[in-house]
């Protein structure tokens, strides 16, 4: 069913093919996608967004069907994914990297061959690679700032993070630390990892609630937020701690449920849009058509990132509006958003 016939693509002289593709601004281009983790709905939505946007391009005769390498795998496996994409002679690779450094040498080989590589969701520093991401640090600062203010700038705070050592987690925690530096009266009384896993988050939060009396607030992120809120709901202490949330349908639905019992409940959900993948694809198409990235707009620690905006933040003020959108969605649905082709073109010189 896939229109990418292996005989055409994996033909004898792949290197030449891709070089040609490098300068030629005509399609149709073949875009490869490398995703190292399928255990999350977020990634699913990322892939769906990619397919949706690619369908547009296919209609315009710009691209072929996406070549998607999608499996739960480690750095080694993702290197193999990239190599396979290269060996098939794709013109561009959209990658959600599972490791900040490990893929760099391989990706640099790809860019050296003239393949356009766009890393999404996760910033990496490989030469010739452009990142299309949200600013993870800013993302975390938004909710941390909200929590700090909701605490009135003082009290006992518990942090539940994703995976210690995981780059996105590290960037986020750096943001949190930055915010907390401005609030000397906030004491971090507990810190643990929930592995971005709702059940673990729920267990860890239960442990904290039972063992540390009088927690004033819990800051957490992503899918763990729902677990944390459920733990608070189950433990039901006399005074509920302030909790940070997220913007997934499931969380908003739980938020709504809690509101029926406690109308004064308040929390925050910062969207982390899976649409960054599609945004990355749009940028890649611009580049394939000869666009040069505007250096002035590059940001990030290695100066190769294009930040796409966080679409919106859900707070008590606009809760009703966003809840209405996801009321009937599956729990894993994320309020999403990706940039338009004009936005992508604006990234070019």
């Amino acid at each position, binding site marked *: 069913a896939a229109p990418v016939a292996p005989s055409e693509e994996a033909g004898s002289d792949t290197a030449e093919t891709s070089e040609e593709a490098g300068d030629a601004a005509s399609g149709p281009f073949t875009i490869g996608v490398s995703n190292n983790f399928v255990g999350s709905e977020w990634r*699913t939505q990322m892939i769906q967004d990619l397919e949706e946007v690619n369908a547009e391009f296919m209609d315009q005769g710009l691209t072929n069907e996406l070549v998607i390498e999608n499996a739960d795998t480690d750095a080694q496996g993702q290197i193999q994914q990239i190599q396979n994409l290269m060996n098939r002679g794709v013109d561009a690779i959209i990658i959600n990297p599972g490791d900040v450094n490990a893929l760099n040498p391989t990706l640099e080989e790809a860019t050296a061959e003239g393949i356009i590589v766009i890393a999404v969701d996760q910033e990496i520093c490989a030469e010739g690679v452009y990142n299309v991401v949200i600013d993870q640090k800013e993302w975390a600062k938004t909710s941390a700032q909200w929590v700090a203010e909701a605490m009135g700038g003082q009290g006992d705070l518990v942090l539940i993070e994703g995976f210690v050592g995981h780059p996105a987690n590290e960037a986020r925690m750096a943001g949190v630390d930055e915010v907390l530096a401005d609030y000397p009266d906030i004491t971090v009384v507990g810190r643990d990892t929930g592995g971005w*896993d709702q*059940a*673990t988050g729920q267990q860890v939060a*239960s*442990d*904290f609630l*039972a063992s540390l009396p009088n927690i004033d607030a819990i800051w957490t992120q992503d*899918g763990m937020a729902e677990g944390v809120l459920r733990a608070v709901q189950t433990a039901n202490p006399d005074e509920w701690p302030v909790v940070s949330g997220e913007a997934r349908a499931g969380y908003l639905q739980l938020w709504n449920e809690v509101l029926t019992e406690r109308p004064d409940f308040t929390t925050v959900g910062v969207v982390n849009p899976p649409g960054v993948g599609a945004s990355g694809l749009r940028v890649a198409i611009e580049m394939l058509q000869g666009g040069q990235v505007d250096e002035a707009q590059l940001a990030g620690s290695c100066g190769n990132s294009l930040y796409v905006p966080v679409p919106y933040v859900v707070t008590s003020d606009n809760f009703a509006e966003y809840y209405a959108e996801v009321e009937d969605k*599956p729990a894993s649905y994320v309020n999403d958003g990706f940039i338009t082709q004009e936005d992508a073109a604006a990234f070019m010189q």
Partner: protein
Amino acid sequence: MKKVQLSPPLLALLLAIALFLLGGVLAPGFVNVEQAINIVRLSAFLGIIAAGQTLVILSGGEGIDLSIGAIVTLSAILVFRIVDGQNGMVLPALAVALLTGFLFGAINGLGITALGIPPLVMTLGMAGVVQGSILVLTQGQLVGKAAPIMSTLISRPLVLGIPGVIFIWLALGAVMWLLLERTAYGKHLFAVGVNRTASRLSGVRVPRTVLITYALSGLLSAFGGFMLLGFTQNVFLSLGERWLFPSVAAVVVGGTILAGGKGSYWGTMAGALVLTLISSLLTAVQLPEAARQIILGVTLLVLLSVYGRQRALRE
């Protein structure tokens, strides 16, 4: 003439109580009724998921079930999807989940008995197959909703502030005891675990017993997935994974011999308590993640050396 010997389940239980009290010393506020209930509740999920693992390990022949995590996930996803928020659908959904778990378990059993694939790799491969089936089934989209009655009966306090899952766990304990000690299947299971030739020559249908055991393990894992859904109310694709190795550890800490043929589910229950306590305790004492992992590893080693030792070559 004999030294006073504590049975492993009892030893593990005493250890659990000691750990709990230790928690009170290390982290003031750790010892209270709420926390005790919380810990037993968390143990219950591990304990329920480890029930099938207990049977499989008892069956010997290097028996181990590494597909438990994936089946837990699959079951939760199935229930999530079928129930879709309706209380009335809980029982049919449970039935479908149990049947599915049973079938996948039975395939494990077939591969192990008929094709002679070592259990470790067979069930590992099956974990991949189940995970793959989940992806094909859901296409990555988890549609559905847990029913309110599930959280009421499972995770919310039911009687005297004790959540339903604890009662269900105790009931499962009784059922497992009956199954192991008061049915022909149970007796055959122990026999098969000790010596398959002798069992066969005594008229026990060994492959059938093994097959049923893996199928039951699948079924019990599916039940575990159902219970877990009652706790998390939500599913995700890696829901069951993190319970896999703890389920083996709980069985072993509970004194069941990995070689098979000797052990009990009471032991596994005590083992689940011990493991949950250790991890809760490590959460309560604030240490960096690295240190916590090291301490968890060392603690497990110490526990194993207490009663996980094998016979000496030279006596």
